[in-house]
């Protein structure tokens, strides 16, 4: 594959970093929001401008500095990175609009700080997407952890602080405790950290050592919320909803699974995983997370916590897809990054909109709310269909490919897992929709005059819900990118 040297990936990362001083110095909220919006659009345009290049089969490379012999801070845009960058940068625009509505609607404090760290977090996300080696990925991964800490603890009360502590402990603890040694051991084994199509660890270590590295990596990227290291995610739901939406449904968790996928394909390499027969281990871990996550979600009353557990389960679909080690499974997993992102962000937006409009957080208090906020709840319905994996939504495609992949890999238990989890998804989403639309509201629960949230809140969620639907019929950029990636790593 040919490479082009261009500064664009660096620009894409820097554009939101550069806006931070502007945000800090701007006094009026309008100026601040304008800057955020400008930066978000600029970032999306830069990312989108690279899309045709990637589709034409080129890779864009940019080296910043060689920090350690053989390892540089380096960007490389390939299909997988492009897919992820496209998702997150496009969603940033939507989320900025939504943030404006949400933050203003609730008259939140410290909005400057909020927007600054938001921009920082986005830089880090794009950095992870475009990183060309494990060190760069780790750099931006850590940057993301620290940039999101102030967002998680935005409310500054005791609950936020303890959640913040938990968040840092899990995320930073695993990255320093697991990923860092794994990275160093692999560097010392192979002398490089550059992601390659075959995986740079191929043929360097014994099965035992590679297995240890695999465990360290899979659990080390705790942002992927694989089971024993998942409990930061529900805790982090204390953050304002746009944060939860973008970061905990899209950026942070997706960075986690993206890293896992990247490392599995670029560091270990599919062939190595197949030859050492590590697929079942990944599948087992992912399946366990899917099932347990879904079951826990069933029993939640707080809507955001429910969504959090649903996220935990859905993330493991992606890992599961790659763990199948079959082309179609991997395609399904990668496409699910996009599909889940659009669906889940809609759900979070809805939860936020309900909170802005009514101040309610719990499902039991939302009976009959569909009549008051029909647009919001319709969007909610569409998105939950997408997450469950039913047509007419994008989620159907990814789930379909996962099913195909499991058949291709002859993993019948996976089929069962997918089936059960889809049922569970339906079981926790549908009652909410049902109660919202078809049960009579207990008037006492709402103060009079509940209506739709401000337009800044509603428009974004309508847009993302529509995109979720459109993706079924026109999955092209995402599906094409995932397909390209899978072809390039399997050599097909």
């Amino acid at each position, binding site marked *: 594959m040919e490479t082009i040297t261009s500064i664009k990936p660096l620009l894409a990362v820097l554009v939101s970093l550069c806006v931070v001083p502007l945000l800090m110095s701007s006094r009026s909220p309008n100026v601040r929001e304008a800057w955020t919006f400008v930066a978000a659009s600029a970032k999306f345009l830069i990312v989108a401008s690279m899309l045709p290049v990637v589709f034409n089969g080129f890779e864009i490379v940019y080296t910043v500095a060689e*920090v*350690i012999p053989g390892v*540089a801070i380096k960007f490389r845009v390939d299909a997988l990175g492009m897919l992820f960058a496209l998702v997150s940068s496009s969603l940033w625009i939507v989320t900025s609009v939504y943030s404006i509505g949400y933050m203003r609607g609730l008259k939140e404090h410290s909005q400057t700080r909020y927007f600054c760290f938001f921009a920082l977090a986005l830089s880090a996300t794009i950095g992870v997407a475009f990183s060309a080696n494990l060190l760069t990925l780790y750099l931006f991964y*850590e940057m993301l952890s620290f940039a999101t800490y102030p967002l998680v603890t935005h409310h500054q009360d005791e609950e936020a*602080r303890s959640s913040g502590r938990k968040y840092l402990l899990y995320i930073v*603890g695993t990255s320093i405790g697991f990923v*860092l040694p794994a990275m*160093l051991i692999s560097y010392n084994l192979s002398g490089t950290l550059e992601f390659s199509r075959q995986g740079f660890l191929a043929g360097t270590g014994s099965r035992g050592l590679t297995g240890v590295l695999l465990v360290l990596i899979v659990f080390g990227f705790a942002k992927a919320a694989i089971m024993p290291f998942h409990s930061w995610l529900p805790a982090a739901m204390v953050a304002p909803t746009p944060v939860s939406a973008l970061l905990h449904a899209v950026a942070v968790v997706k960075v986690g699974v993206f890293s896992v996928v990247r490392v599995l394909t670029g560091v270990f390499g599919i062939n190595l995983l197949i030859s050492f027969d590590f697929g079942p281990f990944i599948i087992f871990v992912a399946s366990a997370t899917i099932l347990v996550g879904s079951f826990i979600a069933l029993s939640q009353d707080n809507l955001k916590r429910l969504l959090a557990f649903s996220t935990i389960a859905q993330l493991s679909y992606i890992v599961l897809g790659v763990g199948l080690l079959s082309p179609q499974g991997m395609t399904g997993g990668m496409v699910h990054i996009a599909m889940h992102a659009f669906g889940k962000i809609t759900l979070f937006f809805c939860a936020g909109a309900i909170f802005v409009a009514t101040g309610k957080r719990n499902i039991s208090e939302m009976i009959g709310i569909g009549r008051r906020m029909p647009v919001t709840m319709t969007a909610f319905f569409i998105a939950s269909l997408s997450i469950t994996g039913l047509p007419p939504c994008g989620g159907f495609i990814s789930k379909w490919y996962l099913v195909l992949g499991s058949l291709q890999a002859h993993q019948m238990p996976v089929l069962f897992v997918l089936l059960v989890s889809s049922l569970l998804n339906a079981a926790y989403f549908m009652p909410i929709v049902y109660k919202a639309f078809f049960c009579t509201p207990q008037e006492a629960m709402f103060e009079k005059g509940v209506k739709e949230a401000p337009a800044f809140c509603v428009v974004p969620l309508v847009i993302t819900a529509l995109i979720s639907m459109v993706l079924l019929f026109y999955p092209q950029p995402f599906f094409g990118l995932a397909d390209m990636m899978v072809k390039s790593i399997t050599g097909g």
Partner: protein
Amino acid sequence: MSQHYPALLVIVPLLSAFLISAAGWLNKRLCFPIAVAALSVACFSSVLLLFQVLDEKVVLYKLGGWSPPWGIAYSVDYLNGLVLVVVSVVALLNLIATQRNVEQEFSEKIGAFYTLYILFVTGLLGIVVTGDAFNLYVLLEIASLTGYGLIAMGENRAPLATLNYLYMGTIGASFYLLGIGYLYIVTGSLNMADISAILPSLYHSKTVLAAFVICIVGVWLKMAFFPLHAWLPNAYTYAPSAVSSLIAPLMTKVIIYVMIRLMLTVFTPKYIFSTLNVSDSIVWIAVIAIVMGAILALGQRNLKKMLAYIIVAEVGYMVGGAWLGNRAGMTGAILHIANDALMTLCVFLVVGNIVYKVKGYAFEDLKGLFRKMPFTMGAFVVGAMSIIGVPPTCGFFSKWYLISGAIQAGHYGFMVALLFSSLVNVILFFRVIEISYYEPFENHHGQESHPGKIAEAPLTMLVPLLIVAAGLVVVGVYTGDIVNHIIEFAIPKGIV
């Protein structure tokens, strides 16, 4: 003039220290400008010297015109070229940054203070630049004596802490002297290069073994390596803030340089790593040092003492790295001398700014500081990131080499200790950040303030601090160049 850089480096600060002392009696306002000028010259010549080293590999300067084994010679190679730059830059930045603190805390004895300050720096520069084992002892004593004088000017408990430091420091320096005596009795020489040339025939001598043990123990005492660290936390905590931000970054690092110099140049790597079979156990002691330093830091309720215990752990990093016996570990140790000096400077300057504004450094005094002093605390976060080891700050890269060294040596205990200490650092620093970020500002010291209003330290304090904080990232990004062009040549070929 270019051939005189090694001398100028030491002589200019020395002479200006005398000028400052005289100015202290005649016109106090001259003290600070003279000090700045002197250290700028030292800084400038150390940088030029480093470039000269890059060209010529070794710069030799014969003092008094006598050739080395008979006279004293300065020899500057890649290793001390790097450390010289670090020492002079840190000293200069700290001098400028703490001017206000000094005025606040030493209004009457400004002349004496700056004299001791400059002499301390002279001592450290002399230690680093010299190629003579005995000359090193004399300069070590200069640095120590001035250090005692400076530290003891702190708050109530400072004199006792200093006295304990003095006892330990004197034992350490005397042990070093004794070890040099043991080397002298068998080699008859005091010049480092000369000793190492004579030593190979004496590898199995008991005297050389004893000399080695005594020297190393002495140096460990001075650098506060774990079981011998008892003096450090109190001394650094109770010192005046302008002093702790000078001594904490420099003293231990320079002594670690001395240890590495002893290992590489005097006793030669072959003796250290092949003839003696101790490196493994020393790395284990370092592991204990790191773990204990981290645990003890967890128990502290004030910022300075917490940082002091972190220094104890960092000393463990460098000693362990140096003793791993491979190139990566040694690179990590040398790199960490530079990096740790910078990041310790950063956090201690923050403490200085806080003390200047809030008059305290216990955890309760830090409440609400993020609102009050956003830039200072921003720099603190960068320093904290570097100590934790988050890329792209420089602390990450030295940790990288240290862990690489541990893996190559198969010493997984050391790796685990480093990771453990990083994790503990996360807890330590985020506890501080949490307090200063969430708790509302409380006024303990009866000084006018409005919560939520920015009351930053003056610009002369803030600008150097921000330079240091930015430097942490810049040095981190340029790690590759530093390693490839300097440290790579500083380590003898014998170490792989």
